[in-house]
């Protein structure tokens, strides 16, 4: 299937040097989009600790995407346990059972009776902050993922019902819920594993880039709510947008797993790391704490150039020189990060919210 043609493409840049792993993006998405029955286990936006197994667990080993010649590759259909089920808690016992002083809150798997042998053994952020390496050279960073709204979406190509489409005006990839028959080939084919199945409605669902907000000039919830100013957003061809500058001009924002062949439109500023300590406990400036080879395995060979530019510009800024790149990444003016989607949603006329 030919790559879908679009007039313009909206894109994200996530600066991994600033991500705190606070999951505010995750919760802003959850409360806005996935709070309905059948969506309990869904996290259209998720932040994982890397190195780590990801969400769903071991997603980098699940296949999908395209091979070097652009041919579709088979993928795995994850289970709800792989994603991390929506746990249940013994609220009644602790809050209303008169055992407030003796019982404590503990999670159980959905549908279980809450006994110890049914305790969860996996969750959407189970390996948080574990990372890799040995003290004093242990390391980790946070990796937020959403639907990548790929230029060459594997989900769209896989669907036998043509239920998935890419909007020509902005490149958003959407699932037509009326056409979707719940076959889940899209879930298998997406190499980033960002499509979920709604077992109540028997359809597949995923991030919609908050298209309804965009149409009102409001940035996506995950972008606007990020307290760390991690998320830049805008049109890739708009010279005034941060994404244009970071992706096209400075080339410090690069794709996750470019070898998957889907040409994702979420870009990442790769993480810099402090230097290692050598065996004598001395600082070894030659070797970064996060092995560059590991970063290449995630972001491909372009990571070297991106890190070099970042270091060079940081050094300039340290010397008191002006660095437009560093200023852009610092994001002194919050709204500059998502031009032109700067409308405050609180100032829009909206229908009254039901209590």
């Amino acid at each position, binding site marked *: *299937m030919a790559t879908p043609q679009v007039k313009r493409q909206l894109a994200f840049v996530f600066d991994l040097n600033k991500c705190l792993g606070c999951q505010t993006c995750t919760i802003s998405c959850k409360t806005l989009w996935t709070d309905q029955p059948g969506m309990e286990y869904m996290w259209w936006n998720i932040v994982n600790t890397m190195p780590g197994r990801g969400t769903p667990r071991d997603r980098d080993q699940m296949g999908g995407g395209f091979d070097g010649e652009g041919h579709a590759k088979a*993928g795995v259909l994850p289970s709800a346990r792989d994603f991390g089920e929506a746990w249940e808690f013994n609220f009644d016992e602790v809050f209303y059972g008169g055992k407030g002083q003796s019982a404590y809150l503990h999670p159980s798997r959905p549908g279980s009776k809450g006994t110890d042998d049914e305790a969860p053994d996996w969750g959407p952020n189970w390996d948080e902050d574990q990372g890799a390496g040995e003290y004093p050279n242990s390391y980790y960073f946070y990796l937020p993922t959403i639907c990548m709204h790929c230029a060459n979406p*594997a989900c769209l*190509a896989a669907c036998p019902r043509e239920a998935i489409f890419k909007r020509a005006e902005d490149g958003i990839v959407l699932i037509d819920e009326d056409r979707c028959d719940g076959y*889940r080939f899209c879930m298998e084919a997406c190499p980033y594993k960002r499509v979920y199945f709604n077992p109540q409605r028997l359809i597949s669902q995923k991030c919609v880039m908050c298209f309804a907000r965009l149409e009102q000039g409001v940035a996506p919830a995950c972008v606007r709510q990020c307290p760390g100013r991690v998320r830049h957003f805008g049109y890739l061809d708009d010279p005034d947008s941060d994404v244009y500058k970071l992706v096209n001009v400075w080339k410090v924002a690069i794709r996750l797993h470019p070898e998957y062949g889907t040409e994702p439109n979420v870009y990442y500023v790769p993480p810099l790391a402090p230097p290692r300590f050598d065996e004598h406990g001395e600082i070894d400036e030659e070797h970064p704490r996060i092995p560059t080879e590991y970063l290449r395995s995630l972001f491909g060979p372009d990571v070297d150039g991106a890190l070099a530019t970042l270091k060079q510009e940081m050094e300039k800024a340290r010397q008191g020189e002006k660095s437009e790149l560093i200023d852009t990444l610092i994001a002194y003016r919050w709204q500059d990060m998502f031009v032109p989607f700067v409308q405050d949603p609180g100032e829009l006329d909206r229908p009254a919210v039901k209590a």
Partner: protein
Amino acid sequence: MQVKRTDARTEELIDPSSEAWKKARSATVVLSPTPVEMQPTEYVRASWKGRPYGGASSMAVRALHNGAEIFFRLQWNDESPDGKIADINQFADAAAVLFPLVDDAPLLGMGAKDKPVNAWLWRADWERPKNVAAQGMGTTQRRDDPALAATARHARGRWHVVVSRSLNGKSSPAGTVSLTPGTASKVAFAVWQGGNQERAGIKAFSPDWQDLQIEA
């Protein structure tokens, strides 16, 4: 395949183990996997090439009508029934009865443009079968149909399913077949084994239309 007329009541005929079914002659319909190269997307072809599917090799079919409704009793072997979608990587067992709406509608590929076909799709996790209108792969439209009903039972390693509908399909959605006693039509069948993740075009089907003689 003969569809004999019977005086039996709807409540009897919808029951796969009813004595009423003794009146109908059983036909053995041979099923085989749909060709993998016919699957509509490269992903489906790539992911199912060399992976076994369509293992339901035959179906025992009986059919009766009572002047108002037509009943198909479908029986096929399935050692492990999948009655519901208990996890997001699971699929339910299903079966379909397919009719051409024009004489030369192709069976392979679910009809073609302006050559529609109509399926009555039973799925183990649904309360009622659905009406499916199609004019080629990927064009299928599933609709609820108040005239469709089914009773399903799994016993002794076999599914026993009766699917019924009004003969004329008057209250059914658009693109549905109308059957008339005293005439001949064509019919085909398909089975999906949910436990093997079979869905969409990944199924066992009867590769040729069968004649369907509806007794006056």
